[in-house]
């Protein structure tokens, strides 16, 4: 019996030599992260970063999967902030957030503006980093807007917090590991 001839299929299209094709990852949209047992209004402990140990109130999960939290700012200095759920310990304490409206806040709220990026420039680009007068006023209005958003979101939250005894002090205190603390035995 004659051996079967192996045929190699030659493609019909040949790329030109000078054409450079970027490697494109197929997954562009972030997968919506699963929220494991964290409920809006729950108090979380931040584990790393500038506010490590602070107890904050969870508001909602953003589209990127990050958690939107707030101190509230007046109580412990933590502003509206995005946090990765892996860098957080959820506690059993819950705050009533039915009156809190954080609907207008999404990932774009936290995007860095060009003026911000310019401000951080150093060295060769330092001259370009100085903001023009109109950029400065734009920055000022942007920051004022942020302050107002913070205040409006926190207002309802603070009235809810004041109803529970010692909750304000609890949120103002930081979590720390002492000499005899065993995190693997702690029930948060």
């Amino acid at each position, binding site marked *: 019996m004659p051996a079967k001839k192996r045929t190699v299929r030659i493609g019909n299209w040949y790329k030109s030599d000078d054409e450079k094709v970027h490697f494109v990852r197929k997954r562009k949209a972030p997968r919506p992260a699963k929220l*494991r*047992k964290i409920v809006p209004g729950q108090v979380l402990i931040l*584990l*790393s970063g500038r506010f*490590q*140990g602070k107890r904050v109130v969870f508001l909602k999960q953003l589209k990127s999967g990050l958690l939107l939290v707030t101190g509230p700012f007046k109580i412990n200095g933590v502003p509206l902030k995005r946090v990765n*759920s*892996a*860098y*957080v*310990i*959820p506690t059993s304490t819950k705050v009533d957030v039915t009156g809190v409206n954080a609907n207008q806040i999404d990932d774009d709220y936290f995007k860095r503006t060009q003026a911000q990026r310019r401000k951080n420039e150093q060295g060769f680009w330092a001259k370009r980093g100085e903001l023009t007068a109109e950029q400065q006023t734009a920055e000022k209005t942007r920051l004022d807007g942020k302050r107002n958003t913070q205040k409006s979101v926190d207002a309802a939250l603070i009235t809810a917090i004041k109803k529970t005894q010692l909750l304000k002090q609890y949120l103002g205190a*930081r*979590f*720390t*590991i*002492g000499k*005899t*603390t*065993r*995190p*693997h*035995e702690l029930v*948060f």
Partner: protein
Amino acid sequence: MKGQADQKKEATKTVKKVKTTNKSAPVRLWVKAAFTGFRRSKVQQNENQALLKIQHVEDVASSRFYWGKRVAYIYKAHTLQNNTKFRTIWGRISKSHGANGVVIARFGRNLPPRAIGSTLRVFLYPNRA
């Protein structure tokens, strides 16, 4: 002494404007762990796997909490790097070792042997809860 009084007033005025710094005590969000050595037999060792004895962890069930947690070995050097003289080697706890709570950690670069006996920081993240 009107001039002096005015100067004092100015001084107190400016002091009021200065923001008060954070005076709270530093918090510790990491657990102490002793680097007891590399995983080894009597005459041979594997430097890729570091044995860590985490404080207050005495059995395998407790050590399971620390699986996946990030560990840092922090040391000082003479020259500045990233504006600081402190340097770190990061790793993760990969598995338990034995019955008494010892864990094995793997680092980005293997730990230097002079770190044996030193305290490493086991952080509480990533939190798998």
